[in-house]
């Protein structure tokens, strides 16, 4: 029942309720003020922050430039890589899905394990690579079955491929995925999915040009960084195409000729220094390096006694042997201490103090002048020649011919070899220079070391009459031909050059040491010089034994340098066959076959291929 006491407390209740309601209204006003502050006064600031959250700039990997030979044969191409990706968060049962995929395309059990591991370690929305390098058939099978393969995404990526594989491994090198080191140097690489960097050869040397400029896409991302959609994009610039001076046909023949051997061949245009063929045999398949190299393959390549991973053409260092004699002859002539007509008698050996220096020909050559000494490669003549000329004059001539130096070839890794002189010996061996050292250098032995590339440059500079051409493999970038500075003149007397040329002509064309390798094409005769480099000091019991009876690793290196045609030479070649026995037997015939092909094709006189302009969209933005 309502009574007075109730009325009192009802009135109190009403007052307090009113007070509370007033307070509530005040708090609501405060909250509304805060809303106003956030959404009106600070709107600009927060709108910008929201946009920053939402929009990411994503770099788009540009297509890598192609590499062509001088006639337009594609040597390194960027081809479609048919891949299968798995987006873990979209798959219902990852293992079951992968097993279903394995029914459609070849997918090994270890590969499935690997994918499962990647899934565990990665984020659920980041695609994981299941398989790549699929052929069209397998790729189509996946495509047809995508409706029942939740989470599986067929994808076309970019794959660098080398159609000629091992034939060009040392020239082109290869590309591979970015490493932590690359990222440390160029952090932006991290945002280029699937980007590959040139690792060796032309791929590395011309990496900047081949790469192109990355494009960029504005993409909307969610809080986990997953791309929701693309808002806008700016196309990148595709990488520049690179044209090499190589003639792939010559390169192929060279490779065939060196099959099963360990050695190098280089063919060069003596006027420009453009390399027409450069082979280090055996090669390796660079295609295996663009994805992950298996440790088995790595071990196999490393353990191979023929050292396929070494680019012997520029890193192999050999005593030049008798191929060096033309340089000694020119040094002698230039020094004026040896007349071309002066005769030296070769009895098969000469003595210096208590030491006997042998000629390669046991019975000796008899009386030799310079022409005959080059033709017959008489060691005794060149001992004498070197003795009279002295090491300093010989070393000076070596440097003119580009020995003991590198040329900045667009294939990284050149070695400079060694041109010894008294200062070097004092420094390196703590010993004085003796006449015997000069004797040894006179026949291209001793401490003298050259690379096959240097031998070819030497041959080219002999051939062109003393023009210091610089070797190079890249002829054009993005269709623009490189302008090479005219080679310096080495200051040789043309008369001296003519004497050496005639001697080298006689080697192959007048019954000299390379007579069996004569090229019978009129107007394209080849002049050359054989050489045999001792691998170790021959002991008496090995001397005179036939090469075949000596274990492979103790056999001499076979060398040959040559140029053609004899008149107005255009091409120079150097051939080194490791443990090949004698230069005339093993190296010169290879040069003959190659130069015969060169004569037919005459690549230096053909117009240089101009790659077509390419306008291709960059690949789509990817999460």
């Amino acid at each position, binding site marked *: *029942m*309502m009574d007075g*006491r*109730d009325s*009192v*407390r*009802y009135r*109190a*209740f*009403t007052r*307090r*309720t009113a007070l*509370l*309601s007033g307070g*509530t*209204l005040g*708090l*609501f006003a405060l*909250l*509304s003020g*805060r*809303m*106003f502050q*956030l*959404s*009106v006064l*600070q*709107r600009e*600031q*927060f*709108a910008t*922050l*929201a*946009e920053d*959250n*939402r929009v990411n700039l994503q770099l788009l990997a540009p297509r890598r430039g192609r590499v062509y030979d001088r006639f337009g044969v594609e040597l390194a191409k960027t081809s479609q890589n048919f891949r299968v990706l798995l987006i873990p968060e979209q798959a219902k049962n990852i293992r079951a899905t992968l097993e279903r995929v394995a029914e459609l395309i070849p997918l090994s059990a270890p590969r499935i394990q690997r994918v499962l591991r990647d899934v565990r370690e990665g984020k659920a929305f980041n695609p994981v690579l299941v398989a790549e390098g699929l052929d069209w058939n397998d790729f189509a099978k996946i495509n047809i079955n995508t409706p029942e393969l939740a989470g599986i995404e067929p994808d076309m990526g970019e794959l660098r491929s080398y159609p000629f594989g091992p034939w060009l491994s040392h020239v082109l090198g290869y590309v591979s995925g970015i490493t932590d080191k690359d990222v440390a140097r160029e952090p932006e690489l991290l945002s280029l999915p699937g980007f590959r960097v040139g690792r060796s050869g032309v791929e590395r040397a011309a990496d900047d040009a081949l790469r192109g400029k990355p494009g960029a896409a504005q993409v*909307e*991302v*969610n*809080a*986990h960084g997953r791309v*929701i959609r693309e808002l806008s994009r700016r196309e990148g610039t595709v990488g520049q195409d690179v044209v090499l001076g190589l003639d792939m046909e010559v390169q192929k023949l060279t490779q065939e000729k060196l099959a099963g051997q360990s050695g190098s061949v280089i063919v060069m245009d003596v006027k420009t220094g453009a390399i027409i063929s450069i082979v280090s045999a055996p090669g390796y398949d660079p295609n295996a390096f663009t994805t992950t190299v298996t440790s088995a393959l790595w071990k196999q390549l490393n353990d191979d006694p023929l050292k396929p991973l070494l680019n012997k053409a520029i890193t192999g260092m050999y005593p030049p042997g008798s191929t060096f004699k033309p340089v000694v002859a020119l040094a002698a002539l230039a020094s004026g201490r040896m007349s071309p007509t002066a005769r030296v008698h070769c009895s098969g050996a000469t003595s210096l103090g208590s030491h006997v220096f042998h000629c390669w020909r046991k019975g000796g050559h008899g009386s030799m002048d310079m022409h005959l000494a080059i033709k017959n490669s008489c060691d005794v003549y060149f001992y004498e020649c070197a003795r009279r000329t002295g090491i300093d004059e010989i070393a000076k001539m070596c440097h003119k011919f580009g020995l003991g130096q590198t040329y900045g070839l667009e294939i990284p890794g050149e070695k400079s070899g060694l041109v010894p002189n008294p200062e070097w010996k004092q420094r390196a061996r703590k010993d004085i220079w003796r006449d015997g050292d000069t004797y040894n250098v006179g026949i291209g032995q001793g401490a003298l070391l050259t690379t096959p590339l240097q031998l070819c440059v030497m041959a080219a500079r002999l051939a062109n009459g003393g023009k210091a051409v610089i070797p190079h493999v890249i002829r054009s970038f993005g269709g623009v031909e490189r302008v090479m500075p005219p080679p310096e003149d080495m200051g040789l007397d043309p008369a001296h050059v003519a004497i050496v040329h005639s001697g080298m002509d006689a080697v192959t064309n007048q019954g000299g040491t390379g007579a069996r390798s004569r090229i019978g094409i009129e107007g394209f005769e080849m002049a050359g010089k054989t050489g045999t480099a001792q691998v170790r000091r021959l002991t008496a019991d090995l001397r005179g034994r036939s090469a075949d009876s000596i274990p492979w690793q103790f056999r001499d290196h076979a060398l040959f340098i040559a140029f053609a045609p004899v008149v107005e030479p255009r091409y120079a070649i150097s051939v080194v066959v490791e443990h090949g026995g004698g230069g005339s037997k093993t190296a010169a015939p290879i040069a003959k076959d190659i130069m015969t092909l060169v004569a037919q094709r005459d690549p230096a006189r053909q117009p240089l291929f101009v790659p077509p302009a390419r306008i291709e969209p960059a690949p789509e933005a990817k999460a």
Partner: protein
Amino acid sequence: MPMNDHFGPTGRELRFKDKLRVMNWTLVALITSVCCIGFALLYSVAGGSFDPWAERQIVRFGVGISIMLAIALIDIRTWFALAYPIYGVSLLLLTAVEFVGRTGKGAERWIDIGPLQLQPSELMKIALVLALSRFLHGILLEDVSRPTRLIPALLLVMIPAGLVLIQPNLGTTTILVAGGLGLIFLAGLSWKIILPVVALGVAAVPLGWEFALKDYQKQRVYTFLEPDRDPLGAGYNILQSKIALGSGGLFGKGFGEGTQSRLNFLPEKQTDFIFTVLGEEFGLFGLLILMGLYLAILAQGVTVALDTRSQFGRLVAMGICLNFLLYILINTAMSMGLIPVVGIPLPLVSYGGTALLTVLIGFGMLLSVQIHRGVDIPRSAANLI
């Protein structure tokens, strides 16, 4: 005995049909409107899909509103009679949950009611309002401040609050304590007690900081005071919420266009931070509409309280209103970075069955008070257990 004062019929003669006619349908409509805003937002944050949130929330609402109407139709004297038993059961469940919780059966913290679940701590919010209202119903104004009456009243509040605090559930504790003290205040606690206690409370804040708060709770406060200090860590929620609200501007980015929520920058977007989604998509305009609806609901509640004959009914109505108000204040202030992050949903809007059911049961009680507002309950009835 016929009653002819402005409080209306005493209720003995109310028939089912009359109850339906008398019921405050405006309040029911307002509640439904707010829930509909919730459905729309849940549809939007799911990327324009009823699945997974909107659909289930609609079903829960259907069940919840039926329970609300059923409770509304039950006589207020029944609720008066059941107040202590309900409180007792709730306290028992709360203790049991503590016990079972410690032995590691987390699933038993819930009571299933069809598609809805009820936590004892949620049930306690209603039970406390009922029990405290009944207790205060029997006390004269001048007796409210007497220790013999005040201390039992405070115990009614503090025992469950303490049990919830050690769960630990700071949000529910706050609502229990603030709601309970609010009811004692409304019952007429003397200012002579209120003012010194408030002063003492302010002075005790540093002590409480030092001894009462757990490290993660302190961390929340630090983060609140300076959210930019660690924008990707602890300050992330507050910062992203402010960004979403602020970037909405006056009229918002449009329905389904909220980038912050759609792209998952916003944490707990479907539950505790749904207010932010509203702000991002509908701007200040949308926020003010919702706040207006809330105010209208509260106004209806206060009107019911002032129009009710029994002190019990009045206190129950205001207790429900206080709970509802606290939900709103805590959630919106948290979303706007005014107070530290506390796990309190936005009532009737946030996704989640428990909170929705609690609020709807509360409004059921409120409506029961409203329908039976003329019913007289003698002061002495409070003394009978």
